[in-house]
């Protein structure tokens, strides 16, 4: 089974870069069936990057109302039932990208897990994350490594359905 770990984010936008940093922690720790990549892309580009893999783990920043910075959510694509194109104004969203890839008969991952870290500030140009987000990077990398190896490990992420403030 071929797996891709994809860290998404912008490393000059503070907490927005968290996905990239966590992916970097995982690089070198995984066996040859796992590719680790980082990207600052969305939509159609994402579809092309995921093509050819059986399983994908995506790490990204998120901003949900009323959540504490550093909270990690685990999502499945079904958790993101949203408008088919407005996630990004210039591109299609992840759910549509996966569906489009399948429609075009690309080899899209059968399993997609998204780890989303609540950011504090993703709008100020700055390198590196703020402390609340920085703190969860190493434990999150460990959780992802354990998940991919099928080894029971301590979870810091919570499923989006368990989110205290409700719907997403």
């Amino acid at each position, binding site marked *: 089974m071929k797996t891709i770990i994809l860290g998404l984010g912008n490393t000059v*936008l503070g907490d927005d870069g968290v996905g990239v940093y966590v992916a970097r922690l995982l690089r070198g720790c995984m066996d040859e069936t796992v590719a680790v990549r980082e990207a600052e892309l969305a939509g159609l580009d994402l579809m*092309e990057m995921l093509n050819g893999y059986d399983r994908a783990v995506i790490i990204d920043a998120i901003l949900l109302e009323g959540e504490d910075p550093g909270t990690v959510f685990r999502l499945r694509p079904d958790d993101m039932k949203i*408008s*088919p194109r407005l996630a990004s104004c210039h*591109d299609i969203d*992840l759910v549509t990208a996966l569906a489009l890839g399948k429609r*075009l008969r690309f080899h899209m991952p059968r399993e997609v897990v998204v780890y989303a870290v609540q950011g504090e500030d993703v709008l100020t140009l*700055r390198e590196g994350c703020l402390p609340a987000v920085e703190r969860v990077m190493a434990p999150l990398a460990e959780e992802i490594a354990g998940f991919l190896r099928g080894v029971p490990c301590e979870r810091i992420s919570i499923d989006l359905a368990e989110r205290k403030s409700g719907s997403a």
Partner: protein
Amino acid sequence: MKRVDIDPITRLEGHGKISIFINDEGSVENAYLQIPELRGFEKFVEGVPIEEVSRIVPRICGVCPAAHHMAAGKAADAVYNVDIPPVAKKLRELYYMAHFIHSHAAHFYALAAPDFVLGPDAPKAQRNVLGLIDKVGLEIGREVLRQRAISQDIQILVGGRATHPVWNIPGGVTRALSVESRDKVKGWAAEQVQFAEFSLKLFNDVVLSNKKYLDLIMGDVFEQVTNYMGLVDENNRVNFYQGQVRVVDTTGQEIIRYSESQYLDHVAEHVEPYSYLKYPYLKERGWNGFVEGQGTSLYQANPLPRLNAADGMATPKAQAEYEKMFETVGGKPCHKLLVNHWARLVEVLYAAERMEELINDEEITDPHVRVIPSTTPREGVGIVEAPRGTLTHHYWTDENGIVTKANLIVGTTNNNASISMAIKKVAQNLIKPGGEVSDGLLNTVEMAFRLYDPCFSCATHSLPGQMPLTVEIKNTAGETLNRISR
């Protein structure tokens, strides 16, 4: 007064919101779009050597990295007061044409086309890129993606990278084009011209030959009469990479023409107390509000405004399409906002033809791609046409070339006032006195801002958060009376 909020941005809850204000009679009084803005750019580049800036700015926006790379690269040339070698200009332009095709094609096929190919009234679940593929077929879908990948590959072959280019340096570019790479790009460029022609034919067959769509395009709701801005060459033909900025008024008369270093004499930015957004306007006219019509101080900068601001296209096939377009829509300048989608495709054809011209230029593999700057750096401005409007980068440095100050006017910003006014008009049309909100509101508002291809956030990826599109109707006390979302 009631307030209707539409929140089209999923990633940043509470940002990127459309607010529609309804007065006590239930009529729309005003509408504003608020876009999340990055903070701290000036501080971030302060202390950075100017030659590194063009490598940093593509990272602030993954949607138009090449546009920022080009504007900052040209500004760095100006800081050193250096005229780059002819082949370096041609290579930069070649690279940039591929970026335009990549960006415009994504917008047309993934975002704009579903409204037309499936129809604005088609069920929401079908009116998207998946429905589009079902309608036009898998083969066309695959071909669109292949052509998009080719335009990406051209950027990689010419400039090393597509998303984070590091190729522009003061005085030119870091590497020449090899003969092998040139031969590869030659074949691709020819394919891209065919792809552009195919896209225009599709637009013609599906949109223009359907009276319903043509009526929608030519109707009054999607109309806005302002001044228009765009870069032009010495013959007043559209140019994306270099030239002078030309502004024409609502009748098409040239009213302003300026070179890069003079932009501050002609463009000023207005700020409203309710928003952190800036609204650029023509300085000579003074800010005269969110009004359209002859005499307005507002301008638009986007595909159709660019074509309005010029006298034509510099390549033959694009020129023929330009003439056909303006003839069909009743002359130039055209104030029908949805014609932007057509203009965008005319620009794709121009970019592809221009790419073919450049790659067949005998000089294109000339190894002399840089001159070493020898003057003391000071201050410089670089202007290019970004896919979504005129892009200006301005830097000041100390005598060692270390940035002390920066100013940017990005593509979408030019259109901030225009977007708000377009949304207002749509809302006025759909929200009738009494405050009833029609079902068509969400999609029609979407169509209004989508035609600008706005770059809402320079953050480049987008993990969805909550509601993608929410309308809240509030009374004067701020209580929510109704909420529509999807």
